[in-house]
Protein backbone atom coordinates (compact mmCIF):
# COMPACT_ATOMS: atom_id res chain seq x y z
CA UNK A 1 0.00 0.00 0.00
CA UNK A 2 1.54 3.36 -1.01
CA UNK A 3 1.68 6.48 1.20
CA UNK A 4 -1.24 8.07 -0.55
CA UNK A 5 -3.64 5.11 -0.14
CA UNK A 6 -2.44 4.59 3.42
CA UNK A 7 -3.26 8.20 4.25
CA UNK A 8 -6.74 7.78 2.74
CA UNK A 9 -7.45 4.65 4.74
CA UNK A 10 -6.22 6.22 7.96
CA UNK A 11 -8.50 9.20 7.47
CA UNK A 12 -11.50 7.07 6.54
CA UNK A 13 -11.21 5.08 9.77
CA UNK A 14 -11.09 8.19 11.95
CA UNK A 15 -13.64 10.10 9.88
CA UNK A 16 -16.86 9.29 11.74
CA UNK A 17 -15.32 9.41 15.19
CA UNK A 18 -13.85 12.86 14.60
CA UNK A 19 -17.06 14.26 13.19
CA UNK A 20 -19.08 13.18 16.21
CA UNK A 21 -16.52 14.47 18.70
CA UNK A 22 -15.68 17.90 17.28
CA UNK A 23 -17.05 20.80 15.35
CA UNK A 24 -16.42 20.36 11.63
CA UNK A 25 -14.38 23.58 11.56
CA UNK A 26 -13.03 25.58 14.48
CA UNK A 27 -10.98 28.79 14.30
CA UNK A 28 -9.20 29.92 17.48
CA UNK A 29 -7.70 33.42 17.47
CA UNK A 30 -6.54 33.13 13.87
CA UNK A 31 -4.49 35.98 12.41
CA UNK A 32 -2.81 36.36 9.02
CA UNK A 33 -1.07 39.20 7.19
CA UNK A 34 0.57 39.61 3.76
CA UNK A 35 3.31 42.27 3.70
CA UNK A 36 1.20 44.84 5.52
CA UNK A 37 -1.52 45.22 8.14
CA UNK A 38 -3.29 42.01 9.24
CA UNK A 39 -5.93 40.71 6.83
CA UNK A 40 -7.53 38.69 9.65
CA UNK A 41 -6.98 39.39 13.33
CA UNK A 42 -7.95 37.06 16.20
CA UNK A 43 -10.79 35.41 14.32
CA UNK A 44 -12.61 32.67 16.26
CA UNK A 45 -15.73 30.75 15.24
CA UNK A 46 -17.07 27.23 14.67
CA UNK A 47 -19.03 25.34 12.04
CA UNK A 48 -21.03 22.55 13.67
CA UNK A 49 -22.26 19.37 11.97
CA UNK A 50 -25.26 20.09 9.75
CA UNK A 51 -24.76 23.84 10.01
CA UNK A 52 -24.48 26.35 7.16
CA UNK A 53 -22.53 29.46 8.09
CA UNK A 54 -22.77 32.49 5.84
CA UNK A 55 -19.81 34.83 5.98
CA UNK A 56 -20.71 38.41 5.11
CA UNK A 57 -18.50 41.41 4.61
CA UNK A 58 -17.50 44.05 2.07
CA UNK A 59 -15.14 43.22 -0.80
CA UNK A 60 -11.47 42.87 0.16
CA UNK A 61 -12.12 42.23 3.85
CA UNK A 62 -10.47 38.79 3.83
CA UNK A 63 -13.41 36.45 3.27
CA UNK A 64 -11.68 34.36 0.59
CA UNK A 65 -8.52 34.25 2.74
CA UNK A 66 -10.58 32.83 5.59
CA UNK A 67 -11.96 30.11 3.30
CA UNK A 68 -8.48 29.20 2.07
CA UNK A 69 -7.32 28.96 5.67
CA UNK A 70 -10.21 26.59 6.39
CA UNK A 71 -8.83 23.77 4.26
CA UNK A 72 -5.17 24.62 4.65
CA UNK A 73 -4.57 26.33 1.31
CA UNK A 74 -3.02 29.11 3.41
CA UNK A 75 -1.24 28.88 6.77
CA UNK A 76 -2.14 31.32 9.56
CA UNK A 77 0.52 33.50 11.20
CA UNK A 78 -1.04 32.89 14.62
CA UNK A 79 -3.87 30.87 16.16
CA UNK A 80 -5.21 27.37 15.54
CA UNK A 81 -7.54 25.95 12.91
CA UNK A 82 -9.25 22.59 13.41
CA UNK A 83 -10.73 20.74 10.45
CA UNK A 84 -12.69 17.59 11.33
CA UNK A 85 -11.14 17.78 14.79
CA UNK A 86 -7.58 17.81 13.47
CA UNK A 87 -5.31 20.81 13.99
CA UNK A 88 -4.22 21.82 10.49
CA UNK A 89 -2.31 25.08 11.08
CA UNK A 90 1.04 23.31 11.00
CA UNK A 91 0.10 20.07 9.29
CA UNK A 92 2.46 19.02 6.46
CA UNK A 93 1.02 19.53 2.97
CA UNK A 94 1.15 15.76 2.34
CA UNK A 95 -1.34 15.09 5.14
CA UNK A 96 -3.44 18.08 4.14
CA UNK A 97 -3.97 16.62 0.66
CA UNK A 98 -5.65 13.58 2.14
CA UNK A 99 -7.72 15.70 4.55
CA UNK A 100 -8.85 18.05 1.79
CA UNK A 101 -10.43 15.16 -0.13
CA UNK A 102 -13.12 15.25 2.57
CA UNK A 103 -14.02 18.84 1.69
CA UNK A 104 -15.60 20.26 -1.45
CA UNK A 105 -14.67 23.77 -2.49
CA UNK A 106 -16.40 26.02 -5.00
CA UNK A 107 -14.08 28.82 -6.09
CA UNK A 108 -15.08 32.38 -6.93
CA UNK A 109 -14.81 31.94 -10.71
CA UNK A 110 -15.34 28.18 -10.68
CA UNK A 111 -11.62 27.42 -11.22
CA UNK A 112 -12.42 24.59 -13.63
CA UNK A 113 -9.43 22.97 -15.36
CA UNK A 114 -9.76 24.52 -18.80
CA UNK A 115 -7.91 21.76 -20.63
CA UNK A 116 -10.23 19.04 -19.29
CA UNK A 117 -13.81 18.25 -20.29
CA UNK A 118 -16.71 18.72 -17.88
CA UNK A 119 -16.64 14.94 -17.29
CA UNK A 120 -12.96 15.02 -16.32
CA UNK A 121 -13.41 18.14 -14.19
CA UNK A 122 -16.33 16.75 -12.23
CA UNK A 123 -14.84 13.27 -11.94
CA UNK A 124 -11.33 14.54 -11.17
CA UNK A 125 -11.17 13.20 -7.61
CA UNK A 126 -12.50 9.81 -8.72
CA UNK A 127 -9.96 9.63 -11.54
CA UNK A 128 -7.20 10.40 -9.03
CA UNK A 129 -8.38 7.40 -7.02
CA UNK A 130 -8.18 5.26 -10.20
CA UNK A 131 -11.82 4.17 -10.03
CA UNK A 132 -13.18 2.28 -13.07
CA UNK A 133 -14.25 4.54 -15.94
CA UNK A 134 -17.85 3.21 -15.87
CA UNK A 135 -18.24 4.12 -12.21
CA UNK A 136 -16.75 7.57 -12.81
CA UNK A 137 -19.13 8.17 -15.75
CA UNK A 138 -22.11 7.09 -13.68
CA UNK A 139 -21.24 9.31 -10.72
CA UNK A 140 -20.40 12.27 -12.95
CA UNK A 141 -23.83 11.93 -14.61
CA UNK A 142 -25.47 11.85 -11.15
CA UNK A 143 -23.60 14.98 -10.01
CA UNK A 144 -24.38 16.78 -13.28
CA UNK A 145 -28.05 15.84 -12.99
CA UNK A 146 -28.03 17.39 -9.50
CA UNK A 147 -26.98 20.71 -11.03
CA UNK A 148 -29.18 20.09 -14.09
CA UNK A 149 -26.31 20.14 -16.56
CA UNK A 150 -26.15 16.52 -17.69
CA UNK A 151 -26.00 17.61 -21.34
CA UNK A 152 -22.61 19.31 -20.78
CA UNK A 153 -20.87 15.97 -20.01
CA UNK A 154 -18.45 16.06 -22.98
CA UNK A 155 -18.10 19.82 -23.29
CA UNK A 156 -15.07 21.94 -22.44
CA UNK A 157 -15.37 24.69 -19.78
CA UNK A 158 -14.65 27.36 -22.43
CA UNK A 159 -17.96 26.57 -24.12
CA UNK A 160 -19.99 27.10 -20.91
CA UNK A 161 -21.51 30.33 -19.62
CA UNK A 162 -20.38 31.83 -16.28
CA UNK A 163 -23.39 30.42 -14.44
CA UNK A 164 -22.94 26.97 -15.96
CA UNK A 165 -19.30 26.94 -14.89
CA UNK A 166 -20.31 27.65 -11.29
CA UNK A 167 -22.82 24.82 -11.45
CA UNK A 168 -20.18 22.45 -12.83
CA UNK A 169 -17.89 23.62 -10.01
CA UNK A 170 -20.65 22.73 -7.52
CA UNK A 171 -21.01 19.30 -9.17
CA UNK A 172 -17.23 18.80 -8.83
CA UNK A 173 -17.38 19.80 -5.16
CA UNK A 174 -20.26 17.47 -4.24
CA UNK A 175 -19.46 14.38 -6.34
CA UNK A 176 -17.62 12.61 -3.53
CA UNK A 177 -20.20 13.56 -0.87
CA UNK A 178 -17.84 15.72 1.17
CA UNK A 179 -18.09 16.27 4.91
CA UNK A 180 -17.80 20.03 4.45
CA UNK A 181 -18.64 22.35 1.58
CA UNK A 182 -16.84 25.66 1.11
CA UNK A 183 -18.38 28.20 -1.26
CA UNK A 184 -16.41 31.30 -2.24
CA UNK A 185 -18.89 33.88 -3.59
CA UNK A 186 -20.76 31.34 -5.70
CA UNK A 187 -23.10 33.98 -7.13
CA UNK A 188 -20.53 36.77 -7.58
CA UNK A 189 -20.81 38.47 -10.96
CA UNK A 190 -23.89 36.52 -12.05
CA UNK A 191 -27.25 37.86 -13.17
CA UNK A 192 -30.21 37.58 -10.70
CA UNK A 193 -31.84 34.61 -12.49
CA UNK A 194 -28.61 32.57 -12.54
CA UNK A 195 -27.89 33.59 -8.93
CA UNK A 196 -31.28 32.17 -7.91
CA UNK A 197 -30.42 28.90 -9.66
CA UNK A 198 -27.11 28.70 -7.76
CA UNK A 199 -28.82 29.58 -4.44
CA UNK A 200 -31.37 26.85 -5.09
CA UNK A 201 -28.57 24.31 -5.60
CA UNK A 202 -26.89 25.36 -2.35
CA UNK A 203 -30.18 25.13 -0.44
CA UNK A 204 -30.87 21.75 -2.09
CA UNK A 205 -27.45 20.45 -1.00
CA UNK A 206 -28.05 21.80 2.53
CA UNK A 207 -31.56 20.35 2.91
CA UNK A 208 -31.16 17.07 1.00
CA UNK A 209 -27.65 15.95 2.06
CA UNK A 210 -27.36 18.08 5.27
CA UNK A 211 -23.72 18.78 4.42
CA UNK A 212 -22.21 21.45 6.70
CA UNK A 213 -21.10 24.48 4.74
CA UNK A 214 -19.14 27.69 5.01
CA UNK A 215 -20.30 30.20 2.42
CA UNK A 216 -18.91 33.60 1.55
CA UNK A 217 -21.01 36.25 -0.09
CA UNK A 218 -21.32 40.00 -0.20
CA UNK A 219 -24.84 39.77 -1.61
CA UNK A 220 -27.26 40.13 1.29
CA UNK A 221 -30.20 39.09 -0.83
CA UNK A 222 -28.61 35.68 -1.48
CA UNK A 223 -27.78 35.23 2.19
CA UNK A 224 -31.34 35.95 3.35
CA UNK A 225 -32.79 33.79 0.57
CA UNK A 226 -30.85 30.84 2.00
CA UNK A 227 -32.00 31.58 5.53
CA UNK A 228 -35.66 31.98 4.59
CA UNK A 229 -36.09 29.20 2.02
CA UNK A 230 -36.09 25.43 2.01
CA UNK A 231 -35.85 22.80 -0.71
CA UNK A 232 -39.08 20.98 -1.41
CA UNK A 233 -38.19 17.57 -2.81
CA UNK A 234 -41.82 16.90 -3.82
CA UNK A 235 -41.94 20.01 -6.01
CA UNK A 236 -38.20 19.73 -6.87
CA UNK A 237 -37.68 23.41 -6.21
CA UNK A 238 -36.75 25.93 -3.53
CA UNK A 239 -39.78 27.34 -1.68
CA UNK A 240 -40.09 30.06 0.99
CA UNK A 241 -40.49 28.96 4.59
CA UNK A 242 -43.83 29.89 6.21
CA UNK A 243 -44.13 33.50 7.37
CA UNK A 244 -41.95 34.22 10.43
CA UNK A 245 -39.91 31.03 10.12
CA UNK A 246 -36.22 30.82 9.26
CA UNK A 247 -33.78 27.96 8.82
CA UNK A 248 -32.19 27.61 12.26
CA UNK A 249 -29.17 25.75 10.88
CA UNK A 250 -28.21 28.73 8.76
CA UNK A 251 -26.33 31.33 10.78
CA UNK A 252 -24.16 34.35 10.05
CA UNK A 253 -20.64 35.68 10.52
CA UNK A 254 -19.68 39.25 9.64
CA UNK A 255 -16.13 40.39 8.95
CA UNK A 256 -15.07 44.02 9.14
CA UNK A 257 -11.53 45.38 8.95
CA UNK A 258 -10.04 41.95 9.58
CA UNK A 259 -12.09 41.27 12.70
CA UNK A 260 -15.11 39.06 13.20
CA UNK A 261 -17.70 41.53 14.48
CA UNK A 262 -20.74 39.26 14.43
CA UNK A 263 -21.41 35.57 15.03
CA UNK A 264 -25.05 34.60 15.45
CA UNK A 265 -28.47 33.83 14.05
CA UNK A 266 -30.47 35.63 11.38
CA UNK A 267 -32.69 37.31 14.02
CA UNK A 268 -29.63 38.53 15.97
CA UNK A 269 -28.13 39.92 12.77
CA UNK A 270 -31.25 41.83 11.82
CA UNK A 271 -31.57 43.50 15.25
CA UNK A 272 -27.84 44.11 15.74
CA UNK A 273 -26.93 47.58 17.01
CA UNK A 274 -23.43 47.53 15.52
CA UNK A 275 -23.16 50.67 13.36
CA UNK A 276 -21.27 48.86 10.59
CA UNK A 277 -23.80 46.01 10.44
CA UNK A 278 -26.69 48.48 10.41
CA UNK A 279 -25.09 50.32 7.50
CA UNK A 280 -24.22 47.06 5.74
CA UNK A 281 -27.79 45.77 6.01
CA UNK A 282 -29.39 49.10 5.08
Amino acid at each position, binding site marked *: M*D*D*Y*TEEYTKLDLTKTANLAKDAVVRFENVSIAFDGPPVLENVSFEVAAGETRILLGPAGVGKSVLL*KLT*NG*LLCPDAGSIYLFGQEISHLP*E*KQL*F*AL*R*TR*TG*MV*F*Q*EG*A*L*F*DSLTVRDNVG*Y*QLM*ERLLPAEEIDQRVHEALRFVELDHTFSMLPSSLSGGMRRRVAIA*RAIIDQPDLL*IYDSPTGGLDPVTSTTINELIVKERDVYKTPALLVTHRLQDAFTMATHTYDSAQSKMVPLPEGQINTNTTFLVLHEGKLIFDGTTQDLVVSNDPFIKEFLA
Partner: protein
Amino acid sequence: MPLPIENLDKLAKKLMLSLQDYSLFCWQTISNVGRAPHYWGDVMTQADLIGVGSLPIVVLTGFFTGAVLALQSAASLAQFGAQAYTGQFVSLSMIRELAPVLTGLMVSGRNASGMASELGSMVVTEQIDAMRALGTDPMKKLVTPRVLSTVIMLFLLTIVSDTVGTAGGAAVAVLISKQNGTQYFTSAYHALVYADIAQGLTKPLFFGFIISTVGCYFGMKTTGGTQGVGRATTQAVVVSSVLIIFSDFILSRAMLWLYSGI
Protein backbone atom coordinates in the same frame (compact mmCIF):
# COMPACT_ATOMS: atom_id res chain seq x y z
CA MET B 1 14.43 58.12 0.07
CA PRO B 2 16.39 54.90 0.78
CA LEU B 3 20.16 55.03 0.35
CA PRO B 4 21.59 53.06 -2.61
CA ILE B 5 23.27 50.66 -0.16
CA GLU B 6 19.88 49.84 1.37
CA ASN B 7 18.49 49.01 -2.07
CA LEU B 8 21.49 46.78 -2.69
CA ASP B 9 20.85 45.06 0.61
CA LYS B 10 17.20 44.43 -0.28
CA LEU B 11 18.15 43.18 -3.74
CA ALA B 12 20.71 40.78 -2.29
CA LYS B 13 18.20 39.43 0.21
CA LYS B 14 15.58 39.03 -2.52
CA LEU B 15 18.08 37.20 -4.72
CA MET B 16 19.13 34.86 -1.91
CA LEU B 17 15.52 34.13 -1.00
CA SER B 18 14.69 33.34 -4.64
CA LEU B 19 17.72 31.06 -4.85
CA GLN B 20 16.66 29.27 -1.67
CA ASP B 21 13.11 28.98 -2.97
CA TYR B 22 14.31 27.59 -6.32
CA SER B 23 16.62 25.09 -4.58
CA LEU B 24 13.76 23.82 -2.43
CA PHE B 25 11.55 23.64 -5.52
CA CYS B 26 14.18 21.52 -7.30
CA TRP B 27 14.65 19.27 -4.30
CA GLN B 28 10.89 18.71 -4.01
CA THR B 29 10.73 17.88 -7.72
CA ILE B 30 13.55 15.34 -7.48
CA SER B 31 12.20 13.73 -4.33
CA ASN B 32 8.73 13.39 -5.92
CA VAL B 33 10.11 11.14 -8.69
CA GLY B 34 10.11 8.11 -6.42
CA ARG B 35 6.87 8.88 -4.56
CA ALA B 36 3.37 7.68 -5.39
CA PRO B 37 1.08 8.56 -7.05
CA HIS B 38 2.95 8.53 -10.36
CA TYR B 39 1.50 10.28 -13.37
CA TRP B 40 3.06 8.30 -16.23
CA GLY B 41 0.28 9.35 -18.59
CA ASP B 42 1.16 12.99 -18.01
CA VAL B 43 4.86 12.19 -18.57
CA MET B 44 3.99 10.70 -21.98
CA THR B 45 1.75 13.66 -22.90
CA GLN B 46 4.47 16.14 -21.96
CA ALA B 47 7.11 14.08 -23.78
CA ASP B 48 4.97 14.35 -26.90
CA LEU B 49 4.42 18.09 -26.48
CA ILE B 50 8.01 18.91 -25.55
CA GLY B 51 9.93 16.31 -27.56
CA VAL B 52 7.94 15.67 -30.70
CA GLY B 53 6.68 19.27 -30.74
CA SER B 54 10.23 20.64 -30.68
CA LEU B 55 11.51 18.26 -33.36
CA PRO B 56 11.04 20.58 -36.38
CA ILE B 57 12.91 23.53 -34.83
CA VAL B 58 15.68 21.26 -33.53
CA VAL B 59 16.11 19.60 -36.94
CA LEU B 60 16.21 22.93 -38.77
CA THR B 61 18.59 24.53 -36.26
CA GLY B 62 20.89 21.49 -36.17
CA PHE B 63 21.01 21.11 -39.97
CA PHE B 64 21.79 24.74 -40.72
CA THR B 65 24.30 25.03 -37.87
CA GLY B 66 26.20 22.03 -39.24
CA ALA B 67 25.92 23.49 -42.74
CA VAL B 68 27.25 26.92 -41.79
CA LEU B 69 30.06 25.33 -39.76
CA ALA B 70 31.15 23.36 -42.82
CA LEU B 71 30.88 26.44 -45.00
CA GLN B 72 33.02 28.61 -42.72
CA SER B 73 35.54 25.93 -41.76
CA ALA B 74 36.05 24.66 -45.31
CA ALA B 75 37.05 28.13 -46.45
CA SER B 76 39.47 28.61 -43.53
CA LEU B 77 40.91 25.08 -43.70
CA ALA B 78 41.45 25.38 -47.47
CA GLN B 79 44.01 28.14 -46.81
CA PHE B 80 46.19 25.53 -45.05
CA GLY B 81 45.39 22.71 -47.42
CA ALA B 82 43.44 20.98 -44.66
CA GLN B 83 39.97 20.93 -46.21
CA ALA B 84 39.83 17.20 -45.58
CA TYR B 85 39.41 17.92 -41.87
CA THR B 86 36.03 19.63 -42.37
CA GLY B 87 34.15 16.52 -41.20
CA GLN B 88 36.22 16.30 -38.03
CA PHE B 89 35.72 20.00 -37.31
CA VAL B 90 31.95 19.84 -37.81
CA SER B 91 31.35 16.62 -35.86
CA LEU B 92 33.50 17.66 -32.88
CA SER B 93 31.94 21.12 -32.69
CA MET B 94 28.41 19.80 -33.04
CA ILE B 95 28.65 16.86 -30.67
CA ARG B 96 30.71 18.47 -27.93
CA GLU B 97 29.20 21.91 -27.88
CA LEU B 98 26.80 23.27 -30.43
CA ALA B 99 24.12 20.58 -30.57
CA PRO B 100 23.54 20.42 -26.79
CA VAL B 101 23.63 24.20 -26.32
CA LEU B 102 21.58 25.18 -29.36
CA THR B 103 19.03 22.43 -28.76
CA GLY B 104 18.81 23.56 -25.14
CA LEU B 105 18.29 27.18 -26.17
CA MET B 106 15.66 26.24 -28.77
CA VAL B 107 13.76 24.01 -26.34
CA SER B 108 14.09 26.68 -23.67
CA GLY B 109 12.58 29.34 -25.93
CA ARG B 110 9.73 27.06 -26.88
CA ASN B 111 9.03 25.12 -23.70
CA ALA B 112 10.25 27.10 -20.68
CA SER B 113 7.96 29.89 -21.88
CA GLY B 114 5.14 27.41 -22.49
CA MET B 115 5.45 25.89 -19.03
CA ALA B 116 5.65 29.29 -17.31
CA SER B 117 2.62 30.65 -19.14
CA GLU B 118 0.53 27.48 -18.74
CA LEU B 119 1.22 27.07 -15.03
CA GLY B 120 1.08 30.84 -14.47
CA SER B 121 -2.40 30.98 -16.02
CA MET B 122 -3.46 28.10 -13.80
CA VAL B 123 -2.19 29.97 -10.74
CA VAL B 124 -3.97 33.25 -11.51
CA THR B 125 -7.26 31.49 -12.33
CA GLU B 126 -7.05 29.52 -9.04
CA GLN B 127 -6.79 26.17 -10.88
CA ILE B 128 -3.70 25.28 -8.84
CA ASP B 129 -5.60 26.04 -5.61
CA ALA B 130 -8.53 24.00 -6.93
CA MET B 131 -6.16 21.09 -7.60
CA ARG B 132 -4.79 21.33 -4.05
CA ALA B 133 -8.33 21.56 -2.69
CA LEU B 134 -9.18 18.36 -4.57
CA GLY B 135 -6.35 16.59 -2.77
CA THR B 136 -3.80 16.51 -5.61
CA ASP B 137 -0.23 17.71 -5.21
CA PRO B 138 0.42 20.11 -8.14
CA MET B 139 4.15 19.49 -7.81
CA LYS B 140 3.61 15.78 -8.49
CA LYS B 141 0.88 16.21 -11.08
CA LEU B 142 2.23 19.17 -13.05
CA VAL B 143 5.91 19.76 -12.30
CA THR B 144 7.50 16.30 -11.97
CA PRO B 145 6.09 14.97 -15.31
CA ARG B 146 7.33 18.10 -17.13
CA VAL B 147 10.81 17.80 -15.62
CA LEU B 148 11.10 14.07 -16.34
CA SER B 149 9.92 14.40 -19.92
CA THR B 150 12.11 17.44 -20.67
CA VAL B 151 15.25 15.71 -19.37
CA ILE B 152 14.56 12.56 -21.41
CA MET B 153 13.42 14.34 -24.56
CA LEU B 154 16.24 16.90 -24.60
CA PHE B 155 18.71 14.02 -24.43
CA LEU B 156 17.06 12.42 -27.47
CA LEU B 157 16.67 15.72 -29.32
CA THR B 158 20.39 16.40 -28.88
CA ILE B 159 21.19 13.08 -30.59
CA VAL B 160 18.88 14.12 -33.44
CA SER B 161 20.62 17.49 -33.63
CA ASP B 162 24.05 15.80 -33.66
CA THR B 163 22.94 13.63 -36.56
CA VAL B 164 21.30 16.30 -38.70
CA GLY B 165 24.11 18.76 -37.91
CA THR B 166 26.69 16.33 -39.24
CA ALA B 167 24.43 15.68 -42.22
CA GLY B 168 24.10 19.44 -42.84
CA GLY B 169 27.87 19.74 -42.80
CA ALA B 170 28.10 16.84 -45.23
CA ALA B 171 25.61 18.47 -47.59
CA VAL B 172 27.69 21.66 -47.78
CA ALA B 173 31.00 19.78 -47.97
CA VAL B 174 29.84 17.60 -50.86
CA LEU B 175 27.51 19.92 -52.76
CA ILE B 176 29.22 23.29 -52.31
CA SER B 177 32.85 22.61 -51.36
CA LYS B 178 32.95 19.61 -53.74
CA GLN B 179 34.62 17.36 -51.18
CA ASN B 180 34.43 13.59 -51.13
CA GLY B 181 31.51 12.39 -49.01
CA THR B 182 33.29 9.27 -47.77
CA GLN B 183 36.27 11.37 -46.72
CA TYR B 184 33.97 13.76 -44.83
CA PHE B 185 32.21 11.00 -42.89
CA THR B 186 35.41 9.04 -42.22
CA SER B 187 37.07 12.16 -40.84
CA ALA B 188 33.95 12.99 -38.78
CA TYR B 189 33.72 9.47 -37.38
CA HIS B 190 37.39 8.85 -36.59
CA ALA B 191 37.82 12.15 -34.76
CA LEU B 192 35.25 11.19 -32.14
CA VAL B 193 36.27 9.48 -28.92
CA TYR B 194 34.23 8.34 -25.93
CA ALA B 195 34.90 11.58 -24.00
CA ASP B 196 33.33 13.69 -26.77
CA ILE B 197 30.14 11.63 -26.82
CA ALA B 198 29.96 11.54 -23.02
CA GLN B 199 30.42 15.30 -22.83
CA GLY B 200 27.84 15.96 -25.52
CA LEU B 201 25.24 13.68 -23.99
CA THR B 202 25.73 14.64 -20.35
CA LYS B 203 25.03 18.30 -20.96
CA PRO B 204 21.41 17.89 -22.20
CA LEU B 205 20.53 16.09 -18.96
CA PHE B 206 21.49 19.19 -16.99
CA PHE B 207 20.03 21.59 -19.55
CA GLY B 208 16.71 19.71 -19.58
CA PHE B 209 16.53 19.94 -15.81
CA ILE B 210 17.30 23.68 -15.91
CA ILE B 211 14.74 24.44 -18.65
CA SER B 212 11.89 22.56 -16.97
CA THR B 213 12.53 23.57 -13.36
CA VAL B 214 13.02 27.24 -14.26
CA GLY B 215 9.90 27.25 -16.48
CA CYS B 216 7.78 25.53 -13.83
CA TYR B 217 9.24 27.61 -10.99
CA PHE B 218 8.37 30.94 -12.60
CA GLY B 219 4.96 29.59 -13.59
CA MET B 220 4.11 28.34 -10.10
CA LYS B 221 5.29 31.59 -8.48
CA THR B 222 3.25 33.83 -10.78
CA THR B 223 1.50 36.76 -9.14
CA GLY B 224 -0.31 39.76 -10.56
CA GLY B 225 -2.87 38.46 -13.05
CA THR B 226 -2.32 38.28 -16.79
CA GLN B 227 0.49 40.85 -16.62
CA GLY B 228 2.19 38.55 -14.12
CA VAL B 229 1.86 35.62 -16.55
CA GLY B 230 3.64 37.64 -19.26
CA ARG B 231 6.38 38.62 -16.80
CA ALA B 232 6.84 35.01 -15.63
CA THR B 233 7.10 33.81 -19.24
CA THR B 234 9.81 36.33 -20.14
CA GLN B 235 11.76 35.68 -16.93
CA ALA B 236 11.63 31.92 -17.50
CA VAL B 237 13.15 32.18 -20.99
CA VAL B 238 15.81 34.70 -19.98
CA VAL B 239 16.88 32.89 -16.81
CA SER B 240 16.90 29.41 -18.38
CA SER B 241 18.87 30.62 -21.43
CA VAL B 242 21.50 32.36 -19.28
CA LEU B 243 21.72 29.35 -16.96
CA ILE B 244 22.21 27.00 -19.92
CA ILE B 245 25.17 29.02 -21.21
CA PHE B 246 26.63 29.45 -17.73
CA SER B 247 26.26 25.77 -16.83
CA ASP B 248 27.72 24.82 -20.24
CA PHE B 249 30.93 26.55 -19.23
CA ILE B 250 31.01 24.81 -15.84
CA LEU B 251 30.18 21.42 -17.35
CA SER B 252 32.76 21.79 -20.15
CA ARG B 253 35.41 22.64 -17.58
CA ALA B 254 34.44 19.69 -15.40
CA MET B 255 34.36 17.27 -18.34
CA LEU B 256 37.72 18.39 -19.63
CA TRP B 257 39.18 17.82 -16.19
CA LEU B 258 37.44 14.47 -15.84
CA TYR B 259 38.38 13.01 -19.23
CA SER B 260 41.56 14.83 -20.19
CA GLY B 261 42.93 15.92 -16.83
CA ILE B 262 43.20 19.49 -18.19
